[in-house]
């Protein structure tokens, strides 16, 4: 049986011995590896991937929101704002929703700048480009263009971009219930217009 003085349990080891040089090196290298792994997992994708996947949807939303002619300016403003903010973006869980939120804000800015309230109804032939897919009925989108801004945004986000209610709410900056109401009101108005 060892005498009490010779006993060296792990807890009683003096601090100097806890981390020898070799230990420090291995701890540091493990931390570096861990940091790299975390970095890889959370690293933002190249911005080009956002353009490839979402630029067409952003353009469709903007055409629905401000009309074909002004959509181009809003499109540029949307993506320049996105580029400015992108490197510091901490949550990349929903990049599409993030882009559409910016697009929505740019559309609102655009309306404010033009002082248009309510919006003039876009000419049907001018609205032909609103459709995200060519098979969509142009007449319907002309009516969508005539809806009040919030309803128009809700309808476009839902049917041109296939966003769920929660994402529409995020894009519009309102509650999911309010988004649902805007969508519902918009649809009701469109039904009336088509009847």
């Amino acid at each position, binding site marked *: 049986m060892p005498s009490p003085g010779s006993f060296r349990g792990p807890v009683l080891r003096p601090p100097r011995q806890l981390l020898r040089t070799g230990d420090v090196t291995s701890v540091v290298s493990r931390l570096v590896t861990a940091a790299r792994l975390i970095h890889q997992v959370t*690293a*933002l994708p*190249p911005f*080009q991937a956002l*353009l490839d996947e979402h*630029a*067409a949807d952003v353009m469709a939303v903007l055409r629905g929101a401000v009309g074909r002619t002004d959509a181009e300016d809003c*499109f*540029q403003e949307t993506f320049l704002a996105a580029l400015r903010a992108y490197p510091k973006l901490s949550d990349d869980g929903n990049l599409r929703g993030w882009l559409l939120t910016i697009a929505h804000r740019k559309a609102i800015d655009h309306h404010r700048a033009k002082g248009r309230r309510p919006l003039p109804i876009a000419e049907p032939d001018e609205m032909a480009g609103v459709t995200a897919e060519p098979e969509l009925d142009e007449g319907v989108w002309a009516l969508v263009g005539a809806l009040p801004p919030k309803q128009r945004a809700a309808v476009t986000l839902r049917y041109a971009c296939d966003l769920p209610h929660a994402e529409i709410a995020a894009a519009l900056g309102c509650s999911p219930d309010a988004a649902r109401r805007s969508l519902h009101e918009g649809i009701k108005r469109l039904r009336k217009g088509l009847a």
Partner: protein
Amino acid sequence: MKASLERLTERAATEGLLDIAYTTADSPFGPLLLAATPTGLVKVGLPNYDPEETLEDLAARVSPRVMEAPGRLDDARRQLDLYFEGRLHEFDLPLDWQLSRGFRRRALRAIDRIPYGRTRNYTEIARSAGNERAVRAAGTACGSNPIPIVVPCHRVLRSGGGLGGYGGGLPMKEALLRMEGVGIH
């Protein structure tokens, strides 16, 4: 949509928001990925590497503001074309060395000074980089060269004259050296 995206790339560059512009360029060995920062050419991706992975790596290491912008790489593409035709012997392109540091960067700068059609061995590169005994590290520096072809790591051979290694595969190294008129034993 194409015109809108081109306009966006130009405006992003003007406003300092395009950190990495990239494009692909044809070569006799397959497509090359070319990427440049505002400082200069930062990456040449050889045909046997996945361009997607390379771009993700650049996004993580340099900046996620990565956009396809062929116009920003016209000069690099033109010079590479001429090089592959044997009509250009010295690249005149601004380079961005930020992906290499310390000894590796010094070794790559030494490699950058090897003239067309000439070779050095790993020991000579180690010496030029300031540590003659770091032969293995000089080999690693060659292997990690982010700007191959333009920074001609294919001109570095083993001390005995053996081919050594090459990120693009030994057949490519051999073909580049033959094209430059270097006899391979």
